[in-house]
């Protein structure tokens, strides 16, 4: 039976998945296949969750493409966003982050 997925991993090489609904801290994040990781904090709809431990300066890979570098180590199950990812192009430290 196909389970109800709340994340999607877009390419095999990705180290993050995208939330398809709001995921509460402690909730299991699962895709349509075998992937399962416990969310260690709230992951809002459309935001990214770390699928494995990511070290500082490691590329964040989504859809097989690098979309930024880790500012610091990111533990599995944590939210991956502007607070721990920086752009390799334009500065993304925008002060109105909510």
């Amino acid at each position, binding site marked *: 039976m*196909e389970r*109800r*997925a709340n994340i*999607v991993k*877009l390419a095999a090489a990705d180290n993050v998945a*995208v*939330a*398809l*609904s709001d995921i509460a801290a402690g909730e299991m994040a699962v895709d*349509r296949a075998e992937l399962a990781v416990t969310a260690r904090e709230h992951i*809002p*709809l*459309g*935001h*990214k969750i770390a699928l494995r431990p990511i070290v500082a300066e490691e590329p*964040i890979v*989504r*859809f097989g*493409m*690098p*979309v*930024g570098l880790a500012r610091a180590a990111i533990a599995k199950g944590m939210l*991956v*966003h*502007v607070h721990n*990812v*920086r*752009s*390799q*192009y*334009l*500065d*993304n430290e*925008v002060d*109105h*982050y*909510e």
Partner: protein
Amino acid sequence: MSDGQADLLARIPRLDLSRMRGYPRQDGRKGIRNYLAVGYLVECAHHVARRIAEPFQEQGAQLIGFPGCYPSDYAHRILEAMCTHPNVGAVLLVSLGCEEFRRGDLKETIARSGRPVELMVIQDRGGTRTTIDEGRAFAAAELARLKAAPTVPLSLAELTVGTKCGGSDGLSGITINPAVGHAFDLLIDQGATVMFEETPELIGCEQHMASRAVTPELGAALVAAVAKADAYHRALGHGSFGGGNIKHGLSTVEEKSVGAYAKSGSRPIVGLLKPGDRPRRPGLHLMDTVNDGPVRLGIPNINDTQTVTEMVASGCQLIVFTTGAGSVVGQAIAPIIKGVSNSRVFQRLSDDIDVNGGTIADGQETIQEVGEHILRKIVALASGEQSRSEALGHQEFALAYKTYEPAGPACFPLG
């Protein structure tokens, strides 16, 4: 019927191409609408032009214009392209009288295109009230004529379609944008001309785009266009990435780019356009939306509408606009179909949105199925049906100062 068209009809259920109709123009193009464009040539003439158009907006009067008083080759080019656009059947120009716009040249170009055109100079016509009265008399007569104009059959190969995203979120790149890409692939396979845009929102995708270019020279031009956008925005100190994107889950401009890029589908890139350039062949084109030369005149495109305006100036008869946060915009001259990336916003703004891509995230539909919905919607609009933004009376239009050099030979490698 072509083999390709028969194959498309066999593969896609509930697709009816038989009702597509176009208004034939002297230059060989066909419009899917037969509008009267009412154009003001400086902000000082805006009010009069708006009052002329207002009573006729549901009958096909479309308000466009340029606010600036100083000369601009770019704005002249865009307004010229708008007034000779396939969706336009007649034009009324409204001038104050002392602005620098070359109104005589514009009127002459429009007349040469075979369209009825009237130029009303407020200072010569006794002011606001008389210009509005005379303008409305012209509009009423022309709209009656436009309504009675004959149409001819229209094929997908005769469509030029652009796509734009505004208020992207973390799901845009995995739901509605790849669905647009699928619809674009289907259109291209039928011989249509399509375009995507916004080089500042493709930063990070330049090498992949180059690999899809039909010649190495075009590939190099695509890379250079993105490098120009990156340099321009660094100098400005403000990229095409902001609070709305971050609030909805995007972390960097390159992540936003990967999602925006999905709208382009998978077919080869055959050309690089500057605003107002007419594609010279069918297939997929990129539009270069950033100024040439040193940083001057401010942010290249002040909002989503100016970018859409530029694609319409390059001949798009309709636009597919995708959003995550929930845009409500429409467009003057070319109707907009709006698609949304998530079901939450679709439910909240369902009156404004034509296609829900959130069903992909919900596991109810595939990217291909939503792409087919978009194609059916394009066909419906080309068959006379109104989009949501059209039905709601949206006619956004924006034009600000920019500067461009003409496109080089590498931009049109196949002639």
